[in-house]
């Protein structure tokens, strides 16, 4: 019996100890210069080579007369993006259940289109959350110049129900061909950047003689480092890349896994306030903290869930230590239920990456309504009356426990 326990514990830990391939290899730059780009046909200049946490850059240049000019801007830093494809396939009428994941998504990517494409962009915006990258790129003609994300390495896993339950991403599938890779990169682009405005905008003024200019706004809170600008009129006719540097300085910090720069004071004060409030109302702060974090900052929900959890760990640990000092824990009861919770805790984090931010928010909304109901019930007069007695007994027991702990 004992051997079996040891074996399963060892198995468990070998599972846990294999994050190497998952979290680390994230900093490969995406492939940049397309082969056979005709240099010279399009030229581009920028008015500054350094920004401080975003700003405006004036891009000017010259392109062949009468052609639309698109400007592609992307960061050298990369982030992780993932998407679980469970939509019914139009051809096979089946749900594919494939999990797509990349570590090479540029931390910033945006195409600036000629100003006359604004209408097509606005039309797609009316789709709300259902907007599609491939459709809007096609409608605006920007698909011809969509290039930097097409060559990122995308892994895909065939997910299964059993696999998800035992916490496996599923078996890895063969690499996709270039066309498929480009198509999936568009879906991952949406999964990462969520809103259309962050990926595509109409900003380029093109004069009849082919000269163009664009005032490009780089928003704040982005990754620091090198950004590349390429102007193009079609797949083969591109400018040589020009680069600028986005600098951020303390107290702004760049969260590598979150792909976001933020002022550290914000999350610090929020966590402080929520932690105090949490202790006062007798519940941990994670309930309030997580939804606020994903609502205020453009952080992925996976990162928020995965980073708040260890924060809670220590307050729980110190609580257990304090109770155990006065022998105020039933170890038998705690461990018995705890073992079933270990299994649940093994499954849950896998599910986090299968859902989108919208689904995360939706389910969290209902969890909070249930929690509000529980809290309300705890303020009803009947509950308060029983609780008063319970608390008196609790205090009495605690006093006894503390006394006997002191005697020893």
């Amino acid at each position, binding site marked *: 019996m004992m051997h079996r326990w040891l074996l399963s514990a060892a198995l468990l830990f070998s599972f846990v100890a294999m994050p190497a391939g998952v979290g680390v290899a994230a900093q490969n730059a995406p492939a940049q210069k397309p082969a056979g780009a005709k240099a010279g046909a399009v030229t581009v200049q920028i008015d500054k080579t350094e920004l401080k946490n975003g700003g405006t850059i004036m891009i000017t240049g010259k392109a062949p007369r009468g052609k639309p000019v698109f400007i592609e801007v992307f960061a050298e830093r990369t982030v992780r993006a993932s998407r679980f494809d469970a939509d019914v396939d139009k051809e096979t009428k089946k749900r594919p259940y494939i999990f797509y994941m990349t570590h090479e998504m540029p931390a910033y990517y945006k195409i600036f289109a000629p100003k006359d494409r604004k209408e097509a962009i606005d039309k797609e915006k009316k789709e709300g959350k259902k907007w599609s990258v491939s459709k809007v790129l096609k409608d605006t003609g920007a698909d011809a110049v969509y290039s930097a994300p097409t060559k990122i390495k995308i892994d895909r896993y065939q997910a299964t129900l059993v696999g998800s339950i035992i916490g496996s991403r599923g078996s890895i599938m063969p690499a996709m061909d270039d066309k498929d890779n480009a198509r999936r990169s568009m879906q991952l682009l949406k999964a990462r950047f969520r809103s259309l405005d962050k990926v595509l905008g109409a900003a380029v003024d093109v004069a009849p003689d082919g000269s163009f200019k664009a005032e490009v706004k780089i928003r704040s809170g982005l990754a620091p480092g090198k950004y590349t600008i390429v102007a193009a009129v079609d797949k083969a006719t591109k400018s040589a890349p020009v680069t600028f540097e986005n600098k951020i300085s303390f107290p702004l910090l760049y969260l590598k896994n979150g792909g976001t720069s933020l002022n550290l004071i914000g999350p610090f004060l929020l966590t402080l306030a929520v932690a105090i409030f949490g202790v006062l109302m007798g519940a941990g702060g994670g309930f309030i903290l997580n939804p606020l974090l994903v609502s205020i900052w453009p952080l992925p929900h996976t990162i928020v869930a*995965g980073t708040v959890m260890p924060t809670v760990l220590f307050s729980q640990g110190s609580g257990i230590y304090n109770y155990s000092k006065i022998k105020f824990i039933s170890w038998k009861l705690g461990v018995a239920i705890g073992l079933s919770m270990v299994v649940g805790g093994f499954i849950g984090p896998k599910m986090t990456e299968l859902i989108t931010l919208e689904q995360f928010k939706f389910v969290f909304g209902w*969890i909070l309504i249930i929690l509000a109901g529980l809290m309300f019930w705890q303020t009803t007069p009947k509950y308060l009356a029983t609780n008063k007695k319970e608390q008196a007994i609790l205090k009495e027991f605690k006093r006894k426990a503390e006394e006997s702990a002191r005697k020893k």
Partner: protein
Amino acid sequence: MIVQFWGQEFKVNIVVGCIGGFLIAIVSSMFGFGGGPFMVPLMTVVLGLPMYVVVGSSLLAIFFNTLMGTMRHYQFGNFDGLFFLIMFPAAILGGWIAPKIAQRVSPTVVKRVAVAGLLILALNLLGVY
């Protein structure tokens, strides 16, 4: 299962407790919170245990879940070290400040404020406004 606690014996339906704990663990590790506010009602209302047995033992039970959830999130690359270093000191500081003001505020009032706050936040998440 019979649980002994300070000379008293309690009969616990451990099957119900484990199923409930399992479900709470999935949801809480999926969404990254502790799970205490769900665990305490489960053990008091559903399992019928008195508060003084529950306070410590529920904490021990959810600690198992939080520990496993933390390791799994780390394995999937969901952990951001710098972000943790921002939030962790704030959480510790909050845990130190809160008991000092706890005597001056009524827990019932705090809970009523929490109910209102939670509902506002929930409606926002559900996209009502």
